[in-house]
């Protein structure tokens, strides 16, 4: 009988904790889709094991230089958008940004895979990530 209470307590702790975490993640998913529905950005699944992209002021400066050469004529010199969309405060992953630079999007944006290799794309991603409203 003495053993029953700790076991019941452990079970209750696991159930309540799992339910709280599940509710929080589901609530987040709902909010994310709601926010994406009212913007031009596509909702995407968070990748839990995606590594954090290394960044530094020097990398951002290099990205800015590349941006002015390749991207500014569509996205604007200040990246607030012109023919292409505003790039400030993007709610998409680094991988999505890198993929878009590399492969582009049909009828929307050309591929820059031939012009920019992985180090350039990392710098461009760091620059785009540094743009905040």
């Amino acid at each position, binding site marked *: 009988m003495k053993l029953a209470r700790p076991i019941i307590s452990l079970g*209750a702790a696991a159930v309540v*904790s799992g339910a709280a975490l599940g509710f929080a993640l589901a609530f987040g998913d709902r909010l994310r889709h709601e926010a994406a529905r009212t913007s031009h950005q596509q909702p995407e699944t968070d990748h839990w094991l995606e590594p954090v992209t290394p960044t530094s002021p020097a990398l951002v400066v290099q990205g800015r230089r590349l941006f002015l050469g390749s991207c500014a004529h569509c996205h604007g010199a200040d990246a607030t958008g012109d023919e292409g969309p505003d790039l400030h405060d993007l709610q998409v992953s680094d991988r999505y940004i890198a993929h878009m630079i590399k492969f582009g999007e049909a009828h929307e944006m050309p591929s820059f895979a031939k012009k920019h290799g992985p180090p350039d794309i990392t710098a461009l991603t760091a620059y785009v990530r540094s743009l905040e409203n």
Partner: protein
Amino acid sequence: MESTIWAKAHGATTHFPLALAVCSVACDAAGFALARKPVGHELRAAGYWTMIFGAMGTVPAVLSGLLMTQGTVMGHDALRLHHLFVWPAFALLVALGTWRLVQGRQAPPRALAAYLVLAGVAAGLMTAAAYWGGEMMIAR
């Protein structure tokens, strides 16, 4: 509605679970060490209530954070690092608070010792999450 309301709410709510969890671990550890003295009983009572209120305090902190970031559960850079500590801390604190509530003030010494280790881990995770939260404030 004012656009920064959830950022303000997150700032207002997030410090309670952090402070209460750290305080709870300190009180329980001292109560455990001074178990044979009358003050040990009082310290464990303080550890009990601070953990329960700390676990309850995680709910508004997490909800306001989700509303502030429009549902971002991982994100990028410092936000990602913040979340890598937040979610395990949240799950662990809710579990520990629930265990304490159902178990009551009395628990076998071995269970209390295991609890104390896990509560220390939860407090450490909360502190790390708070550190990265602070880094985001400085970055902005």
